[in-house]
């Protein structure tokens, strides 16, 4: 037997939203077929009458109108009790007035605006990087695009827009930068000093700065520009901006341009720019026919009138390697270090196959087992799609070391180990056991490492060198020296 309850309560104002909530709560109670809890405005009284409630005359907008229909009359007292409880319920205690902390920014532009940013660091997968980098430029901040696999046309567009707005685009595929002592991307910890670096080569610049660090020379800024910046298509757009910026920087006394030799037209542009600069500039090229990076650093030291360390640091194992004919296999995480090693090895060893060989006939698919001398850049764009860089993820190189040790033709394994922020927190901890294992099964095998790092790097260069040396590897601070050492072992 259903029952209806109608009541008007004077002076019991609640706001309409609260009352709609209460109406809904009561309607949802078991056994309730309809409910209306509202101020007795004309509108709501009409509504109640339509719902079949006999509203007492005289009710007005400041009175609370209650109408409840239950399926069984016996349920009514409990329902009304709940209703009263709900009506008298104090609001939940407020949380902090501003709703706690700010929501996390969801776009680069929103973050830049909120943070008063001067720089954006973009490291999304390459296909998304352009949108984020444009967002940074649109927000009026310079951008470092760490991401690789960014189409060339997008790089050209980014740099053109940056040029028009007086901003700097570092990258895409900019592995390293140091701005006012802050390392970005893969960055070694260097002291402040007189050398400014324009880096079209990430690991190349890391090698240069690490060796300068050994020589006691610090860095003002290192502005990465990306490996394609000096190509004809990009025409050194960012390098020229970076050169001007460093020329204008009072802390910079010498500018080094580190990278693959630019295309001739671009080289002319860079040269005419450096010719007009007040600050002296040196090109430190990487690649075939060029002096190596270590030689470039030595030139820079001489230009600064600073002593050249002789020799550069090396950590040689107790057991000396014997020379014997066989194949040299390079397993690099740094593209420029691989390129430098190729340039040094080829005049002595002849053809060295590589996944980054300029000559297509010498190009080698890294998934195929190599024959003869070979060097792999395991950080190449095509190998890092959807996976971490080999400077972060050592795993693939461990497997390769074991594979090379199992190849009787292979006599020397040449590795680079790059330290600094962003890189693996303790690469020797993973590499040393793998190297020891390889040397244990092959007493005719040699392992040679170049170790790019500084005393202040979080991984501690000396500790890393010690661990690698204890595992039996010959370790060099100079990649060029490491390569020459490795080449001598197989060329004998």
């Amino acid at each position, binding site marked *: 037997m259903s029952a209806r309850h109608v009541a008007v309560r004077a002076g019991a104002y609640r706001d309409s939203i609260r009352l*709609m909530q209460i109406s809904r709560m009561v309607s949802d109670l078991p056994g309730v077929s309809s409910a209306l809890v509202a101020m007795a405005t004309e509108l709501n009284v009409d509504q109640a009458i339509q719902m079949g409630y006999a509203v007492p005359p005289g009710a007005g907008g400041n009175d609370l109108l209650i109408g409840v229909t239950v399926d069984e009359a016996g349920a009514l007292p409990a329902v009304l009790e709940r209703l009263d409880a709900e009506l008298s319920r104090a609001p939940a205690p407020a949380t902090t007035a501003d709703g706690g902390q700010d929501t996390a920014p969801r776009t680069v532009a929103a973050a830049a605006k909120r943070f008063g940013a001067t720089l954006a660091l973009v490291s999304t997968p390459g296909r998304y990087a352009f949108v984020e980098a444009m967002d940074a430029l649109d927000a009026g901040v310079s951008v470092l695009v760490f991401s690789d696999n960014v189409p060339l046309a997008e790089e050209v567009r980014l740099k053109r827009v940056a040029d028009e707005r007086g901003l700097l685009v570092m990258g895409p595929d900019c592995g390293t930068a140091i701005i006012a002592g802050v390392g970005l991307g893969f960055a070694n910890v260097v002291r402040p000093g007189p050398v400014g670096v324009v880096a079209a080569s990430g690991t190349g610049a890391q090698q240069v700065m690490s060796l300068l660090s050994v020589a006691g020379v610090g860095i003002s800024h290192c502005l990465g520009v990306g490996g394609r910046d000096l190509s004809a298509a990009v025409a050194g757009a960012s390098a020229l901006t970076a050169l001007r910026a460093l020329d204008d920087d009072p802390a910079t006394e010498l500018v080094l341009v580190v990278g693959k030799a630019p295309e001739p037209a671009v080289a002319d542009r860079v040269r005419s720019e450096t010719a007009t600069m007040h600050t002296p500039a040196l090109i430190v090229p990487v690649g075939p026919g060029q002096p190596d990076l270590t030689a470039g650093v030595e030139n820079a030291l001489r230009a600064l009138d600073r002593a050249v360390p002789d020799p550069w640091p090396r950590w040689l194992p107790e057991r000396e390697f014997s020379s014997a004919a066989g194949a040299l296999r390079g397993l690099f995480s740094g593209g420029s270090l691989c390129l430098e090693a190729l340039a040094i090895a080829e005049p002595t060893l002849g053809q060295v196959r590589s996944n980054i060989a300029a000559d297509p006939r010498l190009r080698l698919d890294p998934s195929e087992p190599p024959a003869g001398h070979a060097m792999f850049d395991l950080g190449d764009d095509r190998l890092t799609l959807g996976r971490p860089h080999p400077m972060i993820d050592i795993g693939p190189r461990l497997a390769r070391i074991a594979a090379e040790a199992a190849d009787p033709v292979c006599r020397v394994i040449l590795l680079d180990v790059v330290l600094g922020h962003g890189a693996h927190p303790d690469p020797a901890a993973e590499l040393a056991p793998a190297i020891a294992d390889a040397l244990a099964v092959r007493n005719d095998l040699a392992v040679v490492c170049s170790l790019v790092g500084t005393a202040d790097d979080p991984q501690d260069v000396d500790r890393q060198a010690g661990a690698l040396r204890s595992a039996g590897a010959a370790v060099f601070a100079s990649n060029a020296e490491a390569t020459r050492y490795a080449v001598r072992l197989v060329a004998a």
Partner: protein
Amino acid sequence: MTTQVKRLLAGEPRTVTVGAQLLADALADQAAPHLNVEWRPPADDLLPALRRVAGDPRRASANALAAERMLAAGAQLVDVRRASDVIGLERGQFCHAGPPVDWARASGPLRGALIGAMLLEGLADDPDDAARRLATDTGIALAPCHDRGGVAPMAGVVSPSMWLFVLRDEVHDRTSWCPLNEGLGRVLRYGAYAPDVLERLRWMGDVLGPALAAALAAHGPIDVKGLVGQMVQMGDEGHNRNRAGTLMLLRDLLPDLAEDTARSGAEVARVARFVGGNDHFFLNLVMPAAKLQAAAAGDIPGCTVVTAMARNGTEFGIQTSGTGRRWFTGPAAVPEGLYIGGYGPDDANPDIGDSAITETVGLGGFAMAGAPAIVRFVGGTVSDAIRTTREMYEITVAENPAYALPALDFRGVPTGIDVTAVIRTGILPQINTGIAGRVPGTGQVGAGLVQPPMFCFVGALDALAEAAPAV
């Protein structure tokens, strides 16, 4: 040497990071100031269009110009006149809310409102006759309010004899309009057309409109922008709560109403009672003020800012600055909310009305942080309201200092929705709205929150991409 790059090298960079957490961690290890973006990849199928639009070199300055114009736009109430005078609406012509729609696709409340307007204009003998004529008569023409430079809430039906508020933006030399608000409950704009609904409309035409027109003429133009700025500091968000705005309007006009010797005291009292007793009366001034702001940002090539969000009860539509008057539509959703009396979600019509023009300029759902009294529409809390407003900053291009939110330390409301930011973040505009009954003639059944369909923004993005130069 540019000063921007010089400034970059002048000291420790303040870096925004997006992507690999490792690189943000490296900055943390160096105690270098940085802020990480909570990034999620956009859908891959939208990426080609997104890249093209993001790469449009016109976009940054176009959006900056849109923001500048939106913030500069003024809104003065200058006149109250019949629609036939203001926009030359002729017998048989009706405006409606949202993107274009015809009778066949019109929803219940729009049909109900059109029937009511036919009866009001004496174009039909009874509701059935009106419906039949609307379906078949060639002399009947429907057009969106937006196409005529105006806006109207809910069904938004405007017929020639209805009185309109006329607003001017002198900065950009533009006029906008909106009909007078009828009150809550069973009203034409919610699709009701019962005799009392028409009776009220006739009184509004015979008494309210002329009385307001005379009072306004005596008073002089009213700065609606100024009133909106005040109301958002008094707990109104300008869409679902307009109480403070309504009372301020009444405060401004009441003396002139009272001094109007052509009107009896009883008539003035009824006008005052009607205006003051309808908490939403001022909505119909916020909306055309918002329309002026949004229209000021219109027609800028390469601009990705939304210039209209509107619903006709069937479809949700948006317009953007860079694509002019083209509508990008998707099916309108049913709002989530609270229902009046015995009504429930089954009685609700999908989202309807031009009133989302308020969100288009940072009011309504975007200004929830300023309206703590109404946060419980969806069982929310004050913190939810603040979070909602904060989230809207992520998809907007500007903050409007004229509409400052005390709860956010007087930060301006988030203004100017950027289509690309919606696509990139997946954050949809938050809209506060009334809920109309599905069945023609019902009226209002509730109020709550709703979001536009993402589809609208995808359509707009594609069109913006077509108009952008290839990267």
